[in-house]
């Protein structure tokens, strides 16, 4: 499992600001030939983020945010090359994630990082912007992928909290201890 801790993720995102919100509806069902890739994309995302696949994309999933991130990632020129690595050994997404994050191909290497940031922050950071040396300060995302992506961003849950203006917790939750982190990021019963 990639050791991509909350500190590292928030460190990358520190000082950023949201730019224009993407307006395209990215949650329409993928074409039939994308269905298999979508499954691999979720497995890869679990390995990249450290969050269980069953949390990222529950079996019964009304929100389908995975499709939004899949379609966004697919717009990047490095996506096909990235997916080839995953397809080469679908049973080992952790191995694929390691290869991606350490790839000598900058497009693939930083696309992996963009995917992590999409899941954690609900925003799309262009891989080639992340790859700049030195990186820009702040690193500005291209866009917040959607209003739903904002509310579903995993940074909030990893912080055992919720986005500004949106909470799925019951009234009065602030007067009690937060739930354990495992309740947020691990599959139930894991």
């Amino acid at each position, binding site marked *: 499992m990639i050791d991509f801790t909350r500190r590292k993720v928030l460190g990358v995102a520190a000082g950023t600001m949201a730019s224009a919100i993407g307006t395209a509806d990215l949650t*329409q069902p993928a074409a039939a030939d994308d269905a298999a890739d979508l499954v691999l994309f979720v497995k890869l995302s679990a390995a990249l983020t450290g969050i269980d696949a069953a949390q990222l994309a529950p079996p019964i*999933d009304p*929100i389908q945010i995975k499709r939004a991130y899949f379609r966004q990632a697919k717009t990047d020129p490095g996506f096909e090359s990235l997916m080839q690595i995953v397809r080469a050994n679908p049973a080992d997404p952790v191995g694929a994630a390691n290869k991606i994050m350490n790839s000598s191909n900058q497009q693939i290497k930083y696309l992996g990082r963009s995917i992590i940031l999409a899941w954690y922050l609900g925003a799309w950071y262009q891989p080639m912007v992340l790859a700049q040396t030195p990186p820009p300060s702040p690193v500005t995302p291209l866009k917040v992928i959607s209003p739903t992506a904002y509310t579903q961003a995993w940074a909030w*849950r990893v912080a055992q909290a919720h986005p500004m203006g949106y909470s*799925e917790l019951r009234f*009065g*939750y602030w*007067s*009690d*201890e937060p739930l354990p982190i495992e309740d947020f990021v691990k599959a139930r019963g894991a």
Partner: protein
Amino acid sequence: MRNLRELAIVAVGAAFVCMLNLHAYAQAPISDAAADINPPVANCNLTPDTAPDPHDQSKHVATPIDSKLLTLGQPCHQVVSQKGLSTDALANLQRGFDFYSWLTFIALNSPADGETIGQGPRPGGDAATKWEALSNYRPLAAVMLEKGSEPTWGTRIVPELCKPLDAPGKIILQLGEAAWDQPFKTGPLIDQNGNYALFDILINKPMFDFIDDNGLYSKQGQERFDRDIVFPEGVNPAANTPGRMGAVMLKVSWHILDPSSGKTLMRQFHTADALIYFPGPPATKTGPTCVAKTLGLIGFHVGHKTKFAPQWVWSSFEHVRNAPNEKQVAERDLHPPYTFFNAGCPQCPNNKTPPSPWDPPASLQFHSNHKSQVIRSIIFPDAVAREVDDLNKRFRTLLKGTVWENYMLITTQWPSDAQSKTDCNGAPMPTFLANTTLETYSQGQVPLASSSCMACHGNATTRHVPAIASDFTFVHEKAQCESDFCGSPAASKSTAGTKRCGLGGGMPQ
């Protein structure tokens, strides 16, 4: 011999535990006191939307939508399955819930006198419905009384000013802001005749009894209540256990009909002769006064707390004439007349709140010539829209020739992850749901800003300070203060050890 005896003891013990488990529900077992609040019912409708194909158990076939469904009663809880007509488990569950919603609609709108829906004595087979009978449902205004007085089930409260206008069969609609102002105070809805749409909230007896028995009908009563608010749930019968209906609440919307000039129109709506009571300030700027109107039903929300849905199941219906959807407008596929859309002005600004002032006068005619131009936003995935459309066609065909063929299901919102500890709204499916008459101005797909029954109702609390979560209903906010004295905020109650969604348990040290 000794081993056999030990084996027998273990077997008996296991059987005893199994018997106990038959009485286990998603929440705590029903106590004797709770059983009175949520008594057994004899006729829970157990019909699922599909069943295994007798010729091929790996497949499912649709339950016929025929006249048998008109008399089977109301489901006490949803009967749904991941297996169904599709290979998509989510789609199958959604269809199951939508089918349950139609069964609920038919049962609640059946005549109060026990006849079959659509076979009443009025035009279009219309009749006073089960939910309009005070023996079955009670308007919220008759629950949350002045001075926090205890309500009495079944009694008909006729305000003094309404008595000269009263007659058998009339319903009393007492106005407060919620009766004409949309949620989030987004404004009134004005029909194409310039009349206000009116809204009412009603609760069934288990829900009423929970409020009454626990003193929650007054602000101080809510302060004195020292437990979590957990309404009784509906559950279908199982071996050795009866079915129970659980808490059901309704929100209905009406528009004003003119019986003399719209006879054809009258046959297309469920109607009620109503006495509209304006209590006067602070509830209404106008009044006190009472007016008589004929109302046509235009919207119908049902919230039902059921087994496996502690976040409740939310069904929404509306009249087919309310407004076109945005696709119909774009394609000029219009079928006027609409109650809330002028087909002659498709480019008119739509879904805009009326100009102020908003408080209705006694005539219930809007003060300017503004008329709401409403378009139904398309906010569901295509697959849901297609499935609902298919069910609507079939059920409306079943109800053909009656007023009820003019009503359609928008869809059903339900918790796709009812046991989630981190999403206390249960991951609503679909994410958004709005009725053009009840959430006109909050249709959309922006989280929390756009209408979602569960995301909004998940924030409901009691009226007292500090408030507590009130189990997905805003009814408690309407409680009045005892003897006109509201008192000071009550002391905080400890929640230590309370296991509720979203809480780790225990106050921080």
